[in-house]
């Protein structure tokens, strides 16, 4: 762990340096790519995402919980222990839990079922770190989410409906920003083209360098609700999985850029 902290220090300094650099208007994907290169040079080849993934790997392989088991036997859709490319195949239906699960909720299910942890013992930051580890093994793989099972089809349709739903005192709805006003800015970042640009769904989980935050898609969705003063859906809940399934299926064929590195 000592090495981690030293590396973390180097990265923190590099990040502070980055923010001071010019911030002219460019394509956010290009800008993030440039910042990533600069950070790699400043930190000697290590990214914050590497640290988080390394932490996640430790957690993933450690024997923990009442059953003193690791998560290595967890099946993310390609069979127990097979992790390559799984992020681009989630959410999907799992026969053991009889639920459609995304990356976050699948990790949680395995912590409950394999390690014997109670839901209230599952720490969010651990799930995120494990998600980053698994994501690091899906980098460069294609997004291949396609709702075929009846349960998946049903949830996809509900996710689509939820995406267009307007509600709340600010008439909030995902589509009014991410479809109608794509590319427009209400702050530093333009509204991303979720249904038209496959790169968007393909870079989650992601590290947001301007906030020093490690986020999964669930955190991103919850933040979009909160930004409009709406209560966010609970972590691991079905609305999050439905929206993710809808967005990931729309990004079918995209190339995973994981873990994402974004502003």
């Amino acid at each position, binding site marked *: 762990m000592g090495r981690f902290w030293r590396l973390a220090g180097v990265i923190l300094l590099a990040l502070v340096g980055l923010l001071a650099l010019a911030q002219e*208007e460019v394509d956010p994907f290009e800008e993030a790519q440039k910042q990533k290169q600069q950070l790699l040079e400043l930190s000697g080849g290590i990214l914050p995402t590497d640290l988080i993934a390394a932490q996640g790997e430790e957690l993933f392989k450690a024997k923990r919980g009442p059953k003193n088991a690791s998560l290595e036997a967890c099946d993310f859709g390609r069979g127990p222990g097979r992790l390559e490319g799984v992020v681009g195949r989630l959410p999907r239906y799992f026969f053991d839990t009889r639920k459609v699960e995304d990356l976050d909720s699948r990790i949680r299910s395995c912590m409950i079922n394999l390690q014997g942890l109670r839901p209230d013992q599952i720490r969010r930051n651990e799930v995120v770190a494990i998600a980053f580890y698994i994501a690091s093994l899906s980098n460069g793989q294609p997004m291949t989410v396609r709702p075929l099972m009846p349960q998946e089809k*049903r*949830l996809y349709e*509900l996710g689509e*409906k*939820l995406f*267009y*739903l*307007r*509600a*709340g*005192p*600010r*008439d909030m*709805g995902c*589509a*009014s*920003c991410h*479809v*109608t*006003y794509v590319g*427009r*800015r*209400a*702050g530093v970042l333009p*509204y991303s083209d979720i249904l038209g640009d496959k790169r968007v769904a393909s870079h989650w989980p992601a590290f947001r360098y301007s906030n020093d935050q490690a986020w999964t898609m669930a955190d991103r969705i919850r933040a979009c*609700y909160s930004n409009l003063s*709406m*209560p*966010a*859906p*609970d972590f691991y*809940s*079905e*609305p*999050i999985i*439905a929206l993710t399934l809808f967005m990931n299926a729309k990004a079918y064929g995209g190339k995973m850029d994981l873990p994402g590195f974004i502003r």
Partner: protein
Amino acid sequence: MRRFYLPALLLLLLGLAQGQTGTTYITPELQRLIQAGGQNYASVLLRQDPAQALCSTHRNRLPAEVLGPFIEEQRKNIKYPADGKLMGDWKQGEAIFNTLARGNCFSCHVGSPLNIGGNVGPSLEKYGQRGTSEAVQRYTYEVIYNTWAYFPCTVMYRFGVGGLLKPEEIAHVVAYLLDPNSDFNTKPALKR
């Protein structure tokens, strides 16, 4: 479960009473999905008004036959300040326009000399050049009170309808935009 059933039913009846069709966007299945997101989440999402339901159903682009009645309905729910004055105190309007948790107008519109404006909405730079005629005051007030009366299903919040700003507060914002002496019209707008 019961708790959410009643408001949904009431809204349904309300929609029917208003003679609007297609106001039930939230099917029982979608309702169950939303409830799975937790009580706080469900309590806000399931309280969908008939206009929100129409925008959801038509994915924010209303077909011609729905448009007319929709706009009429939206015009009807605009309320005005008790004293009838549509222009209040521009200084108070300035605070509302430039505060994220109040109007948050600057996030979407260029024009404020205090904050860099966004480009989600059209630029309002030197908006006061439109003059202070009764028609201009009324339009500006109504657009802010209920945006959907002019731009159905757009992203700008219906500040009056949603209870985000009181009629008097909207009048303050109108003054900020229209008063020729307001900083909005005398000082240069900040742009990125």
